[in-house]
């Protein structure tokens, strides 16, 4: 998949076609997901959702539910709020209180009001139907734009407004730049409320042991600072929480943040004395799981010259985070790291507004706000091309950062590390056979069909340092996001690596074993990778932000190189030569110029563990090394201009789809999809390709099908897979992925992030293609998802 292996180091394992470490257990049916965890004596939870978007809870009668045989306990919000602390928010909003069960008031339809613990999930669900809640229904706050008005119903009355955050930044001379060029376009782009919706819902099992004072937690979690937040909510020390990171997570893509579920079951097990399990059913997940994604309105003005060179832009982004914000508002912050996309803008004004509403809460979704932002920026580039009548590929070429300009600093302060954007763009035109694709489009149009070719060029920032938290909340003075690994070599020579988080399909065991194998010249298939639990683990911030290849990968290189250095020291001492006289290759340490004088890998391991008399004086026994990796290039707070590097590595992608639209129904069919992609050194090409194509599929869903729609009263209209449409193998076309490789200077082997890849550009590319198809009718739709009925209605308006 790497297009120019001759120009790369001659890796043995890295970038080679190799089977993954993880897949074998999954194809055997032997994955260990949270619902497979069977803790003896565990009981089961079901929750009762509120039917009202906004209501006062007048009274709750649990007596009939408690009387049902098999029911052990019924928990209400008042008791839980008494016994636990409120859950964490990213913003400084002390009067927005969040508990796992509603307290006094329900703030969205589907919010959990009570929880039943019973012998089985079946009985627990029966019992929820016996709980009698007296509600006083109230009007709901639903329309995000109206939240800026004062007369809306308040979601959190104590907060006094539905605006949670509003701030404007100006990076560079925006007014001067606007004055210096002759043209502007202003437009609105809207990103619909969708999410990643993994096929596995969220689940958690907790077991409190009051003799050993320890809370064991098994969960389908992908979340930084999970154990910290459990301990904080339960008012216990962090070393009384043991999160088991060896649970396989059935997909997440950012959203598996079940802190409220976890606090709920942890409280229950601590008070009831037996293990408690809660596995969401699909309705729990979609309506009450607080796992919706960004719901965003962009109002943007771009300023550009006669040649289509974009000088500056003003962006207002209004995001509806639902009733409980958690970490979600920070999704307006991460895109600051690539706010102008891959383009050479000189200045940017950015107003970020986060509002609360009577809807299900929002969580981080794949890319942490970057995909909506990329869609909004690409919409503007298309507008500029249309305004000037310049080809849209050409406009992009004129604005892309050039390969001799890296590292390229953008106005907010991030430095794009490396790339050859023009080569990837030229490559995609060739791979897609662009002219032929346009000819095919025109042939379809000649047949009376609607057809369009789309294009998008986007960045995937990887490995964030999370300083955007500080930009949004100065109380969060965080300047790093560490990741760690421990590698140890046993007396017999076998290698074990301990990573410190869960995995949800990204192939971290393959990542660590491949890099460790490469560095140590040992077969990765023989290297075991385990997931240490949270008490055994070294510092971690979990596999978010396309960061693991960058941070965990570089940590692995460092630890492995350190082990190799230690082995060379032992060999030099034992063979009686200086360190620099030792050559290492293929598991043998030999004296330069005297290959017969050597020690093998197992011999050195034996010495290190068992033969003190042969060890260099003062040298640590055993063979182990750990690395705690700082985010490359990070560590400072923003300067006086609020400029700060946020992400160290930037992968690039160019997307080209061909779509056909049925003129009668508005249904879009994606015929072909081409993507050119550069994520530096691909550690495992099959994994990179899978995440890229899977990301494209996810992006097609967000562009055309997926929406958590609400009615004007605040009722969720998409609580099942019949209403919330996930693309099947019919909707996803074959995707042609061509890989480029511009190694990053920031990482150990030149790797960058790739997990968010396809998703960050596909929505923009599909919108581009659909609007190209609709252009002959002078229709432009800049609101995602663009559903068949939206297109049909627009066509009807134009042709009636």
């Amino acid at each position, binding site marked *: 998949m790497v297009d120019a292996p001759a120009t790369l180091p001659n890796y043995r394992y890295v970038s080679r076609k190799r*089977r*993954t470490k*993880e*897949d*074998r*257990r*999954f*194809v*055997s*049916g*032997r*994955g260990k*997901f949270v*619902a*497979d965890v*069977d803790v003896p004596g565990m009981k089961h939870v079901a929750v009762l959702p509120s039917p009202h978007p906004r209501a006062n809870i007048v009274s709750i009668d649990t007596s009939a539910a408690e009387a049902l045989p098999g029911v052990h306990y019924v928990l209400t919000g008042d008791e839980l709020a008494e016994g636990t602390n409120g859950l964490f928010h990213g913003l400084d909003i002390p009067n927005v209180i969040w508990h796992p069960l509603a307290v006094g008031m329900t703030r969205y339809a589907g919010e959990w009001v009570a929880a039943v613990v019973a012998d089985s999930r*079946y009985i627990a669900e029966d019992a929820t139907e016996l709980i009698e809640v007296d509600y006083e229904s109230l009007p709901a706050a639903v329309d995000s734009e109206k939240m800026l008005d004062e007369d809306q119903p308040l979601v959190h009355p104590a907060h006094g407004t539905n605006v949670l955050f509003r701030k404007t930044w100006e990076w560079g001379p925006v007014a001067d730049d606007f004055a210096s060029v002759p043209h502007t376009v202003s437009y609105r782009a809207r990103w619909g409320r969708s999410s*990643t*919706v*993994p*096929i*596995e*819902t969220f689940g958690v099992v907790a077991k409190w042991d009051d003799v050993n004072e320890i809370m064991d937690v098994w969960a389908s979690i992908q979340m930084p600072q999970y154990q910290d937040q459990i301990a904080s909510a339960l008012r216990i020390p962090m070393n009384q929480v043991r999160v088991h990171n060896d649970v*396989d*997570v*059935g*997909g*997440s*893509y950012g959203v598996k943040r079940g802190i409220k579920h976890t606090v709920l079951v942890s409280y229950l097990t601590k008070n009831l004395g037996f293990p408690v399990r809660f*596995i969401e*059913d*699909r309705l729990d997940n979609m309506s009450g799981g607080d796992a919706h994604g960004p719901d965003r309105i962009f109002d943007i003005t771009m300023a550009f010259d006669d040649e289509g060179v974009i000088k500056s832009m003003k962006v207002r982004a209004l995001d509806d985070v639902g009733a409980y914000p958690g970490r979600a508002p920070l999704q307006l912050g991460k895109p600051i790291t690539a706010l102008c996309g891959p383009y050479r803008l000189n200045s940017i004004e950015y107003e970020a507004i986060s509002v609360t509403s009577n809807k299900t809460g929002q969580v981080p979704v794949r890319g942490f706000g970057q995909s909506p932002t990329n869609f909004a920026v690409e919409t503007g580039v298309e507008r500029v091309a249309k305004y000037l009548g310049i080809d849209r590929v050409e406009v992009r070429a004129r604005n892309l950062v050039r390969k001799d300009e890296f590292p390229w600093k953008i106005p907010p302060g991030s430095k794009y590390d490396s790339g050859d954007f023009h080569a990837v763009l030229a490559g995609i035109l060739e791979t897609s056979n662009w002219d032929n694709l346009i000819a095919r489009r025109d042939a379809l149009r000649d047949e009376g069909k609607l057809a369009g070719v789309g294009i998008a060029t986007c960045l995937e920032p990887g490995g964030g340092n999370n300083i955007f938290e500080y930009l949004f909340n100065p109380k969060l003075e965080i300047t790093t996001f560490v990741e760690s690994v421990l590698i140890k070599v046993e007396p017999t020579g076998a290698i074990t690596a301990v990573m410190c988080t869960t995995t*949800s*399909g*990204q*192939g971290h065991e393959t990542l660590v074993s491949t890099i460790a194998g490469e560095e140590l010249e040992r077969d990765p298939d023989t290297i075991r990778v385990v997931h240490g639990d949270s008490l055994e683990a070294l510092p971690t911030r979990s596999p978010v932000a396309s960061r693991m290849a960058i941070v965990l990968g570089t940590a692995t290189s460092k630890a492995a190189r350190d082990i190799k250095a230690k082995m060379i020291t032992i060999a030099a001492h034992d063979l009686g030569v200086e360190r620099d006289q030792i050559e290492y290759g293929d598991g043998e340490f030999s004296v330069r110029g005297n290959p017969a004088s050597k020690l093998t890998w197992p011999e050195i391991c034996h010495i290190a563990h068992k033969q003190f008399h042969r060890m260099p004086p003062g040298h640590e026994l055993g063979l182990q090394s750990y690395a705690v990796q700082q985010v490359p290039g990070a560590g400072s707070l923003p300067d006086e201009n609020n400029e700060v590097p946020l992400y160290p590595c930037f992968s690039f992608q160019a997307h080209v789809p061909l779509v056909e639209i049925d003129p009668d129904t508005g249904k879009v069919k994606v015929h072909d999809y081409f993507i050119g992609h550069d994520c530096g050194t691909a550690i495992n090409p*099959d*994994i990179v*390709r*899978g*995440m890229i*194509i*899977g*990301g*494209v*599929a*996810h992006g097609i869903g967000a562009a055309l099908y997926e929406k958590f729609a609400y009615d004007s009263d605040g009722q969720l209209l998409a609580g*099942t*897979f*019949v209403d919330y449409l*996930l693309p*099947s*193998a*019919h909707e*996803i076309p*074959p*995707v042609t992925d061509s890989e480029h490789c511009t190694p990053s200077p920031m990482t150990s082997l030149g790797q960058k992030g790739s997990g968010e890849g*396809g998703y960050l550009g596909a929505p923009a590319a599909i919108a581009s293609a659909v609007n190209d198809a609709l252009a002959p009718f002078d229709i432009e739709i800049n609101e995602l998802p663009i559903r068949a009925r939206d297109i049909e209605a627009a066509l009807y308006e134009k042709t009636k």
Partner: protein
Amino acid sequence: MTAVEITLNVNGHDRPVSVPPRMTLVDCLRDMLRMTGTHVGCEHGICGACSVMLDGEPIRSCLMFAVQAEGHKITTVEGLLQSDGSLSDLQDSFWECHALQCGYCTPGMLVASESLLNENPDPTADDIREAISGNLCRCTGYQQIVEAVQMTAKRRREGASNG
């Protein structure tokens, strides 16, 4: 609720089990028989994660009661393994093609694919997409799954012609 004594034939073995009449087949397989290879995704018959074969045909085990499955031959992902416990050619091809990421939909995908190959030893890419279109995957975009099924079909055809 009175439990019912039934015997389910799972992967060639008769398994007596006592279940409430309302228990779904997937819950029975997972919670009563502790065969956790089959997964629960949506519980309303859309996602296909719970697919098992009933007399060779793929069905949704979340839409069937366990008591309805008595007298039928049930095949789960565990039953696709060869008798010595090694991977079947289909499972091996999924591994070779990296036809999965998180692995959650994989058992259902394997069941749907095996059912297709039993009926059609030489499926086109479109045939495969049709056969797995009732199984949702959020990781892969389906492409490497299609490639894995094609690889299996090729292996079987070549194996048949060699043997």
